């Protein structure tokens, strides 16, 4: 949520940038890859076997719905992987 309205009163955070399917997406240091993607308004980034869109479902590493490629390595759970500045994320789905 917008830090100015956030009741937890966030302190300063460090901006990072991921490259998602060739496009720069901003995030904050300490976020997961899924957190950055959802924060940027992206809900899905993968398709199931029969082409149904998938993104975050369980949020805790159990369901494997959220897989992405990070720096060329496939099948990384986006909800478990901390994003690092400059990480190159490749999804298998059109943004929606």
């Amino acid at each position, binding site marked *: 949520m917008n830090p100015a309205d956030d009741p937890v009163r*966030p302190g300063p955070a460090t901006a990072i940038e991921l490259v998602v399917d060739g496009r720069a997406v901003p995030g904050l240091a300490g976020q997961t890859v899924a957190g950055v993607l959802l924060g940027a308004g992206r809900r899905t980034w993968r398709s199931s076997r029969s082409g149904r869109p998938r993104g975050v479902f369980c949020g805790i590493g159990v369901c494997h719905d959220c897989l992405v490629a990070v720096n060329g390595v496939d099948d990384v759970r986006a909800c478990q992987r901390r994003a690092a500045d400059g990480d190159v994320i490749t999804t298998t789905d059109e943004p929606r």
Partner: protein
Amino acid sequence: MIETPDVLVVGAGPAGLAAAAAARRAGAQVVLLDAAADAGGQYWRHLPAERPAARERILHHGWDRFARLRGQELLADAQVWLVERHDDRPPTVHALVGPADGTAREKRVFAPRALVLATGAYERTLPFPGWDLPGVFTAGAAQALAKAERVAVGRRVVVAGAGPFLLPVAASLVRTGARVLGVLEANPWPRLARAWTARPAELFASRGKAGELAGYVRDLIRHRIPYRAATGVVAAHGDGRVEAVTVARLGPDWAPGTERRIAADAVCVSHGFVPRAELAVAAGCRLDPDGSVHTDAEGRTSVPGVFAAGEITGIGGADLALAEGSVAGTVAAGGADRRGFTGFPARLEAAHGIRPGWTGWLTDDTLVCRCEDVTAGDLRAAAEATGSRGLRSLKLSTRAGLGACQGRVCGRTVEELLNRHTGGLLDPGRTANRPVAALVRLGELAAHHEDHEENA
């Protein structure tokens, strides 16, 4: 190199933190590890150190207690992927340490004198038409994203399912800027009242939990969020993402009745929890019929030298996890302690347990296995066509439960549905039996074997 701590604690949630602290107090040399980047588990999932916040405590209960427990040394980002059983000593535990699902993680191997498993639980979500649409989340996902990312899963959100956990989820969503349209509990008021008000003295030990829940109820009132019993989400609709949900009145056995449709862009669902028991199963620990790890009052499992604490031993909330962890940690370190009786888990099940009528909201094309896209109709057709009553063979022929999550999400549901279609499975069994507890890359495994051969 094989490390040999007195006590190895797997999981740094409330139970594991309490176990490690107690074992240290008893003088043991302890290694505490967790797959996550930080301590806290699911209950105290919090903002990363890089994102300090002055009032983070408003998202939490027992924050002071956590502040005391989290000072301990923790081996973070450590995924246990294999537990090797031995006949004459506690199991050997293999962990990979580094960024989640990475390729070149550091291998650590532990042969502890005592092992404490505190791996917690994950949610059980029953399928309904449209539950794989983007915008349907587990309630835990909404909670994790709110607490650790400050991301709200939607603007207009419905929270539905069964159990007291729906309340903190609604509270966090509101504090993350979402509008919560309602909290829908599937069970009816009479059942809730009967289970929670009988023999109140038994619940004395859980009074902290009662205070916490009362706080959430005040939150609902303050934010004018309706709480409805005997109600559930039975379908989600939308073109590529959730745009509306169908909400139905549910009978006492959860059979769906009168429906209405409401516009929403997200729905968070939780029908209960499943113990994360795979490491315990790999260690050879006996399970109770409900799938939780069997322990005695000192936290011992059926395997000598292996202890279990927290929600892998039964679903009872964070206070109970802390108490169990403290007992198991003390005893694992060679001290003496035992836990008192608490009626909380039994009440939870009596009040909020899943009832069989839920299959009334399934349609033939409702997805059951999200990984392999297997529908409820596929399962029934396979049972009818083959006449088989074997869970294993029916799973193989439909591929249900054999995808990337290894049946963690749909396992129990597949088993229940097939049990009905076949008139009783011949080989029912919990689906927690997974030889490798986490997906590991073949390259990492190969490297692991080379290491072992070098050492041999």
